[in-house]
């Protein structure tokens, strides 16, 4: 209870691996940032989550039995799940309907295009919030981050069969949620800008 080190996966770090991290904190940070961002999206707590994950990785042990990216991905996943456990119920109670509604599409040639892209992405992750965290994680890891089932199983700490089940169920739930969605419910129109 009074430790902020996450439970290890039974891995132990070889001294050479520890030396590997030394001096490569920047690369590690960028890797963790991308992985965490794909898991949580453009979230306001993203920086804190990345920082926490980096601290955990530097404290924990890595033997090199799996790829470094798999190891860091698993830490990111656990940090994120821990964050969700603290805030999930609060968000479910206090998230308002209007928070989940998208804005209209705008002309891609205006400077607002980037704002639009940001908003669309944030909308996607808000919809994802309504999928259970375990299914959501598997869908993100597989369909967005491009990880294979075996890797995902080691990241989330479960069997491949369970990963496939969660993937199927997560996709099904997402399809239900995105049906008729103003951003993802139809193909974007490529109208002329007048």
């Amino acid at each position, binding site marked *: *209870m*009074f430790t*902020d080190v996450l439970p290890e996966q039974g891995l132990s770090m070889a001294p050479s691996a520890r030396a590997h991290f030394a001096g490569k904190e*920047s690369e590690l*940070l*960028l890797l963790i*940032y*991308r992985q965490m*961002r*794909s898991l949580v999206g*453009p*979230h*306001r*707590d*993203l*920086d804190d989550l*990345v*920082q926490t994950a980096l601290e955990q990785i530097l404290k924990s042990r890595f033997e090199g039995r799996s790829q470094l990216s798999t190891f860091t991905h698993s830490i990111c996943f656990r940090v994120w799940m821990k964050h969700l456990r603290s805030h999930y119920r609060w968000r479910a109670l206090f998230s308002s*309907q*209007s928070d989940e*509604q*998208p*804005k*209209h599409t*705008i*002309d891609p*040639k*205006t*400077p*607002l295009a*980037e*704002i*639009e*892209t*940001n*908003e*669309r*992405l*944030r909308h*996607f992750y808000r919809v994802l919030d309504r999928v259970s965290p375990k299914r959501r994680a598997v869908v993100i890891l597989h*369909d*967005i981050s491009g990880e294979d089932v075996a890797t995902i199983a080691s990241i989330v700490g479960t069997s491949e069969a369970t990963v496939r089940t969660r993937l199927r169920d997560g*996709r*099904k739930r*997402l*399809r239900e949620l*995105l*049906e*008729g969605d*103003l951003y*993802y*419910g*139809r*193909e974007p129109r490529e*109208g002329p*800008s*007048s």
Partner: protein
Amino acid sequence: MSWERIQVLVREDLEATAPSDAEILARFSRLKAERSAAPVSSFSLSQYGFGALALGALAAGVFWISSGGTPFTEGVRVTKEAWKERASLAERPEDRQPTVSAPTSAAPVTEPALRREPRDSSPTPRARSLSAPRETKRSDPASLALPEASWEEIARAMRDGHEERARELIVQLRGSSDAETRDNARLADVQMSLDVRGGARTLPPAMLATLKDLRATGATSSIRGSARRLLAQLEAGGTPAAEELPANSPSSPAAP
């Protein structure tokens, strides 16, 4: 839209909105510097709470053990004699409330009259120090002018989830001297004020008026076009038509 298409779109959006490596590293360097400057507790508030409870329970346990493991009331027996003794002790003279006798004098008690002090013509030391107006340095208007926000900053704010900050920057751009920037900012403001309730898009009346104005007088054709399209969607109720809904099959081919 097929799930395959959505995946592609989300990956593209993640890529398009990701900050640069330099930006990420700079941000975390700043965060690290801030954290090392401020004292940080390794424990969360709930952990402190649990710790306090545990300490309290431990203290109670130690006290209980030291008192011989007996209940608190055991050993304290109030007998009649003890009660009487206690009651007599309470009668100590020094414990009695002092009584104040009523005044016997018939002279009425009056308040001392308020005497008006003659006004001192010379200012008080405090007033003297305030009398001479301080020479204030006139603010240079140029130095007060805030740097104009940029679209990159707005995008960055939205990327980081700081919607309020993005809105502030957009409001700044609304005051721009450049007409196109100003109207783009007004359009962005309208966009961020858009609300969707029950599947229909709605706008506050002031924003609707802005949108109509942009449709008619927007600085560029693309601004006028965007405003026109949005108004059309609002007037149509904003819900997608039935034939536009995606197919039920999960592996429906992506549209070209």
